[in-house]
């Protein structure tokens, strides 16, 4: 018997609200089956089950907020019989387990000498520095607040309690906050370095035009799919850009699950992954991209797509800036940023000719890679794109 708990839904997500159960007690579940839908800052995510067997009991209610590690359901493995005593024991064990904490343990502090309260000067409102700063930020006058600190001093909690009740944030605002948290964390913990290269994509675009000619819209391939395929094949050759960096260090991944940065029309950004992309040919990859983008915009992505990306491709598309040095999505170690293509002068066979060029910038984690590996990746990518028919 196992308790299936709320999985982590991404580097920055800590909780979600359960909005739908897709199984009931008595249903059989296999690994990877979608069992519930959870609302997060990044939209609705379908939760996949890690356990196999029969659902015995649903442990969470619709509408409840669930932190990572919260019990969701009891799954009985096939052939297992459970004595009642163990069930009761397991239930209490689960409750006693603290939720997963990601913050580091606080540093031990030297004991503080006893503090004697000094009478404040006349007219001065006794308050803590934190309270004063926060009050200034909020535009509150300390004289109007009641202090709960020593000697009636106003502390931070008093200021926080006073500020206007927070209006509920829109989903877009929630998503912005999630992105902000993830990107901040990435820049604070990952030592980024960047390598760029200008790439001639004229052969790729010419090949694409002739490939798409005569094909119905549902079978056409986009330049972005070529970039994705080249990313996958180059990552297969340069294994240090594909994987996760955790407390134990860098762990390369056998599978290549490229995340695709998808801009949402409402203004947000998600980077869900296509799983096992190394198994897919170009046409299959294009179909997977279309499906992923559609589901990302509809807000129906799966938990595995949010957490199992091993490298991410971020392409600005057809119009926009010529290059991008992006921020790596932890716990990945690389991000491939491609600017918009432009017709520019280039040198071919000793003469200047107009060519379609893009600038590729790889952002890499210096703990897992150095200039040599990043350079190799770029060289592979460039070589692959110059022979598009082989992609």
């Amino acid at each position: 018997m196992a308790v299936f708990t709320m999985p982590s839904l991404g580097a920055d997500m800590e909780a979600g609200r359960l909005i739908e159960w897709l199984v009931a007690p008595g249903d059989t579940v296999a690994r990877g089956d979608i069992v519930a839908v959870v609302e997060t800052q990044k939209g609705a995510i379908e939760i996949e089950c890690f356990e196999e067997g029969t659902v015995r009991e649903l442990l969470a209610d619709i509408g409840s907020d669930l932190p990572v590690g919260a019990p969701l359901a009891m799954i009985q493995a096939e052939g297992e019989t459970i004595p009642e005593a163990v069930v009761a024991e397991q239930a209490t064990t689960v409750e006693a387990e603290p939720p997963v904490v990601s913050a580091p343990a606080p540093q031990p502090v030297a004991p503080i000498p006893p503090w004697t309260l000094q009478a404040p000067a006349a007219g001065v409102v006794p308050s803590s520095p934190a309270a004063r700063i926060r009050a200034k930020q909020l535009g509150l006058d300390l004289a109007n607040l009641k202090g709960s600190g020593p000697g009636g001093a106003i502390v931070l909690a008093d200021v926080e309690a006073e500020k206007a009740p927070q209006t509920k944030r829109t989903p877009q605002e929630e998503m912005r906050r999630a992105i902000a948290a993830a990107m901040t964390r990435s820049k604070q913990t990952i030592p980024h370095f960047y390598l760029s290269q200008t790439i001639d994509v004229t052969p790729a675009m010419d090949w694409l035009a002739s490939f798409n000619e005569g094909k119905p819209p549902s079978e056409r391939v986009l330049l972005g799919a070529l970039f994705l395929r080249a990313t996958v094949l180059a990552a297969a050759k340069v294994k240090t850009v594909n994987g996760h960096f955790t407390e134990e260090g860098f762990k390369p991944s056998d599978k290549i699950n490229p995340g695709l940065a998808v801009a949402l029309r409402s203004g947000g950004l998600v980077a869900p992954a296509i799983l096992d992309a190394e198994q897919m040919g170009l046409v299959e990859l294009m179909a997977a991209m279309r499906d992923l983008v559609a589901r990302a915009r509809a807000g129906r992505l799966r938990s595995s797509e949010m957490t199992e990306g091993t490298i991410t491709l971020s392409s600005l598309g057809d119009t926009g800036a010529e290059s991008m040095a992006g921020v790596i999505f932890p716990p990945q170690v690389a991000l491939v940023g491609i600017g918009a293509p432009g017709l520019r002068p280039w040198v071919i066979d000793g003469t200047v000719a107009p060519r379609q060029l893009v600038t590729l910038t790889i952002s890499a984690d210096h703990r897992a890679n150095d200039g040599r590996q990043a350079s190799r990746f770029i060289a592979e990518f460039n070589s692959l794109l110059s022979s598009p028919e082989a992609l």
Partner: protein
Amino acid sequence: MTPDQIRIAFLEELTNVAPDIEPDTVGPDDHIQDDLGLDSMDVLTLVTALHDRLGVDIPEVDYPRIATVSLARDYLVGRLA
């Protein structure tokens, strides 16, 4: 189909691809990429939807001819005639 029905069909498929766009706010000469922010994936999705709905297969070389509602209507009228 009348030209106006074709125009409405195009507008419907356009707002399916970009649900945040209000049909009434789309001007006849608004460029679907430069003004309405559709990217190449959106355009392909739109073209696929038009193919399914109207039976018109729009080749890549003709994409500029559906770049605005006005242009698209004229182009589709011509194709369906």
